[in-house]
């Protein structure tokens, strides 16, 4: 076959193949479909190989992302563990600041660093001392209310006599009726309000706060709530049991009221 004949034949044929009527003719369709069928396995295999490669790459990427996210999650959890106590502490300090400003005192935050088993509800040691301006007799409060007062001061620590201590005796008042009394410890985790006259109308649940007559304790600081009132005809005064507002067994952060 001469080159010229082949050239003309192939050129004409290729151009004719583009004519829509010829393109849609049965022989052309059959040849085209035949070619596609012939190459289908190659196409299928290569497409599968490509898909497999893409899948592998995607899995590797997802694996990497997963590892990265795990690390981030661990870091976030660790950060959260650090931040949660800080958040709580922040809240306590905020409340403390409001509390202090309400009574016109400067509050010095302190942490409970020690308490003895045999004097569990009597005294605690805090990490602030004379170096921080702490003095004997200063009131110690926490966010719920009165904790006690400073009994001993050293350079960097102090000892706080708790409300529930047997030696604790604080002038208290009942704001509803303005009756005065004396809050005494030495009754476990409870307090006794003494010297309230028999005629006074005291109800359970009533608030008890530090009385105005107190020389050392900041007046108005909440102490507790009346739990039970016992009347006796033989006695001049009522027997009033008071539950402290502060859970003195779980003290952590306290504030010293500096005038």
């Amino acid at each position: 076959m001469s080159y010229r004949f082949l050239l003309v034949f192939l050129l004409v044929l290729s151009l004719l193949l583009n004519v829509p009527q010829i393109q849609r003719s049965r022989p052309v369709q059959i040849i085209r479909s035949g070619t596609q069928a012939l190459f289908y396995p190659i196409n299928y295999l290569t497409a599968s190989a490509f898909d497999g490669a893409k899948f592998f790459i995607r899995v590797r990427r997802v694996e990497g992302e997963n590892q990265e996210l795990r690390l981030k999650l661990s870091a976030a959890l660790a950060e959260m563990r650090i931040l949660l106590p800080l958040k709580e502490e922040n809240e306590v300090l905020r409340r403390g600041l409001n509390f202090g400003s309400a009574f016109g005192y400067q509050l010095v935050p302190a942490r409970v660093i020690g308490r003895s088993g045999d004097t569990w509800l009597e005294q605690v040691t805090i990490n602030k001392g004379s170096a921080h301006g702490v003095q004997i007799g200063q009131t110690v409060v926490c966010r719920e209310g009165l904790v006690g007062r400073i009994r001993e001061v050293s350079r960097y620590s102090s000892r706080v006599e708790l409300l529930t201590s047997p030696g604790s005796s604080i002038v208290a008042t009942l704001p509803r009726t303005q009756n005065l009394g004396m809050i005494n410890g030495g009754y476990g985790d409870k307090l006794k309000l003494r010297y309230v006259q028999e005629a006074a109308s005291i109800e359970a649940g009533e608030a008890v706060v530090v009385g105005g007559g107190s020389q050392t304790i900041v007046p108005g600081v909440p102490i507790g709530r009346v739990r039970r009132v016992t009347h006796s005809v033989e006695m001049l005064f009522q027997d009033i049991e008071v539950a402290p507002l502060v859970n003195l067994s779980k003290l952590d952060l306290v504030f010293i009221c500096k005038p």
Partner: protein
Amino acid sequence: MQALMILVIMVLTVWLQGVVQFIFRPDLVLILTVILSVKLKKEKALSSAFLSGWLTDALFSFGFVNTSLKTLTAMLAIFLKKFLMWPDLSLISFLVMILTPLSKLGEMLLLRVFYSQNVPLWPILGTTVINLILTPFIFYLLDHLIKSENE
């Protein structure tokens, strides 16, 4: 053996052209057509060009534009090589440089005439440049596989 090798290379090239997605699509089949036109006898080169164009169209295209264009490209390459007594690589590079834009313009023309489609002009330059960059690599790759049959 040579024919089988050419067929395998052709199928691979058509497959690469159809399957692999490039940013600037090189016309690998055109490069192969030019190389075969320079290295093979003209009848074989023309038939190979027609076949590679046909394969491209049958497998990855809807019309038969590539069949016409690759046949025309081979025809022009065979015609021009008679006047240019250059080393193979220079000749092939030169032919790729002028035949790539011509082929693309022909593609535009055929698509407009037969299929009423408008193809943008801007890829012509990109395809020509990338074809020129790839030509030496493809040439050295195929030079060992395809023996020259020049008369």
